[in-house]
């Protein structure tokens, strides 16, 4: 009985029953009246666009691509994919210089790293922020992520031999953020995996997953990155028989879902072997591996599930791992979007909307008043730290901090 499978439409849009549930869960619709909403921008608009591309609406750029509409949809319609695909297909506007800058995380990281202290100093200055606000329309309220002086890749390369000595091996797709901004997260991941007897390797040469390129109208470049990365992952997974772990929920979602669904890049060979490190660690512990935690570790931790992790459905692994640490008082925050959505919130025209979207989350964090907010997404981290003043840590870093290590 393949009848219904054979008639399945692009992104399943014909399954839309017009029930309007997605509109109740769209964070943008609550804050920006210029956005037509997921139902209108997605399946409703698609019917019209298929007749005539004239009906493509520039306001689709206000979509955060948070995927909350897809998580809410009772009929399995890929609403956000419909919206992003329409932007890829119909939007002919060349990306602004600013958007090119924001989207080129790889290039910016490579350029900034050698002069990191200078860049960090400059982007922290009020005057730089004002200049960027006026000339580039990057909102002056934003705090820029700091660049690290030494990349994670070079740190791990120096430990190649030591890592190769572990009986079990994984490859790590670290992403731009760990490499250029927060190598400590990568080091934490190595520490936790080593404690489980697992050595960590780099892929031969990874590139940015490309999510910022997709959302900033540079899908051709994103497709190139995708094809390159799939080749790299195939080398590790198919040729070497390794699992690949990740620590960023958005990079993971992009490679697992956006590559085939938005960019048309096949990932079937590697999809099931690329896991968030939280899931990899949970599965090891479930099979009997053990981690020892410090007796003196006591923290009240509020966990925020990033939208893209919610879409992946893997937030439960982070939740369960944090709950395993004996001294942790765990609070699961309500499912809400923080509002930044990668480069979206950095743009001047989106700043207010971005903060309005995040407010319910910020208010809950303030009322819970935790020691640390835990979250698997780097841009959520920037947004929550800037907007609430609370420190945000990746669950992997929390595990690393709570570990009791016998040797050393």
């Amino acid at each position, binding site marked *: *009985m393949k*009848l*219904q499978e054979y008639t399945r439409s692009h992104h399943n849009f014909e399954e839309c*029953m017009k*029930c*309007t*549930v997605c*509109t*109740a*869960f769209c964070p943008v*619709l*609550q804050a920006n*009246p*210029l956005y*037509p*909403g997921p139902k*209108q921008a997605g399946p409703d608009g698609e019917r019209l666009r298929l007749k005539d591309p004239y009906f493509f609406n520039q306001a689709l750029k206000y979509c955060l691509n948070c995927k909350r509409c*897809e*998580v*809410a*949809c*009772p*009929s*399995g319609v890929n609403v956000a994919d419909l919206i992003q695909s329409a932007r890829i297909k119909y939007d002919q506007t060349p990306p602004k210089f600013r958007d090119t800058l924001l989207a080129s995380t790889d290039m910016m990281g490579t350029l900034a790293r050698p002069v990191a202290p200078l860049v960090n100093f400059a982007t922290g200055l009020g005057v730089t922020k004002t200049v960027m606000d006026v000339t580039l329309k990057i909102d002056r309220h934003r705090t820029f992520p700091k660049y690290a002086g030494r990349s994670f890749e070079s740190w791990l390369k120096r430990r190649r031999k030591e890592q190769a000595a572990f009986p079990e091996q994984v490859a790590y797709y670290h992403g731009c953020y760990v490499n250029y901004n927060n190598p400590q997260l990568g080091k934490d991941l190595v520490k936790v995996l080593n404690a489980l007897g697992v050595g960590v390797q780099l892929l031969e040469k990874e590139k940015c997953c490309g999510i910022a390129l997709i959302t900033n109208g540079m899908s051709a470049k994103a497709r190139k990155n995708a094809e390159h990365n799939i080749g790299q992952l195939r080398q590790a997974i198919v040729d070497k028989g390794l699992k690949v772990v990740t620590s960023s929920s958005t990079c993971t979602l992009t490679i697992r879902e956006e590559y085939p669904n938005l960019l048309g890049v096949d990932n079937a060979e590697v999809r*099931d072997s690329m896991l968030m490190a939280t*899931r990899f660690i*949970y*599965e090891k512990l*479930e099979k009997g591996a053990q981690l020892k935690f410090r007796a003196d570790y006591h923290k009240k931790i509020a966990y925020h599930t990033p939208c893209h992790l*919610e*879409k*992946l*459905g*893997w937030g*439960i692994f982070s*939740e*369960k791992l944090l709950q395993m640490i004996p001294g942790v008082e765990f609070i*699961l925050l*309500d*499912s809400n979007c923080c509002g930044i959505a990668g480069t979206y919130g950095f743009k001047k025209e989106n700043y207010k909307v971005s903060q309005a979207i995040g407010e319910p989350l910020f208010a809950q964090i303030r009322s819970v008043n935790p020691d640390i907010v835990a979250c698997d997404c780097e841009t959520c981290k920037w947004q929550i730290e800037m907007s609430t003043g609370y420190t945000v840590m990746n669950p992997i870093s929390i595990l690393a901090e709570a570990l009791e290590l016998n040797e050393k």
Partner: protein
Amino acid sequence: MKFDTVIIGGGLAGMVAGITLQKAGQQTAIISTGQNALHFFSGSFESLKEANPRIVELFSEAGVRLHYKPGVWLTPLGKFRESALSLEDVDIFPTPQFGRKALIVNFLGYHDFFSSFLAEGLEKQGMSCRVRFLNLPELEILQQSPSEMRSVQIARTMDKLWEKVVQEVRVLLKDEDTVLLPQVFGLQDPSVPGRVRSSIPARVVFAGTLPPSVPGIRTIILLKQRYQLLGGTYMMGDEVVRAHTHEGVVHSVATKNLDNHYIEANNFILCTGGFFSKGLVSNPFQVYEPIFGLDVSYQEDRNLWYNPSFQEDQPYMHFGVKADENLHAIQDGKALENLYVAGSVLGDTHPEFGTAAGAAIRTALHVADEILQN
């Protein structure tokens, strides 16, 4: 990952079963494919004239206030239907003649509240009605995009703006003893409907709108918070794609998001809803239950599936998964010992239950009790 009980379906039945089991000390997970039928909820659960204090208590512990009061409630189209148990902000009247004169208030540009149907319905009962539209500047931002001026968007504004609406209504009110307002109050703050009521000097009736249902969404948010506070694991937006069953016992299920990471449990509850939620699926040849392939009771002859008269009772609404008297699911004529069925997937919600919502709650409680006893 292993749990005591895994509940497939996160609607009303799933929530009630989950909360009951967590409260009894079990570790459970709810796997939910998208949002559920509470988003289309009228606010009236059932017309069964058999009070069940346990239901009222379970909801009140989650912050959802219900009242048991056999009578009739006013549908969004101005008709009266029997009801006995409803959300507190949905009135149940002893008879349809509940007032003398009504002021029906709508918002300018809002098309999902049928004031003229309501007026016609009330006039049939001998009430005289006056319909007025409020034009609040705060709603102008929503009016810019008429297709998105929906209940939930208005309700978000009303959480902050209800006092202003109250003032406007008080100005409009002449000698009416009843004020009808759309159900757009109390999305985040459940105390708002009560405060609106007590600050208008007439009987305030909140009448239903087109979906999404504001009281329904408030209910699901509160039930979900309660479930998670009790330690339940809620897996939103995932879908069970396969079950592993051996000799009449279900061992684990595979989901779309977790692929080869199976979810194991001692007991499973299937409460995946009816046709809308794909708990039941039809094609031109059959009606089936897609996860376990359970036995389904339905008419073989497809011509008998529906009644061409839309308003009449539809035979397909009675189709459902077969279960034994303790709600064990039946597969190939045999009961599965650790798979239970609750809610609309059972179909044929018995007429005495009145509505599917009441049946969902009562079957879920029954299943939870069965699991806890065994």
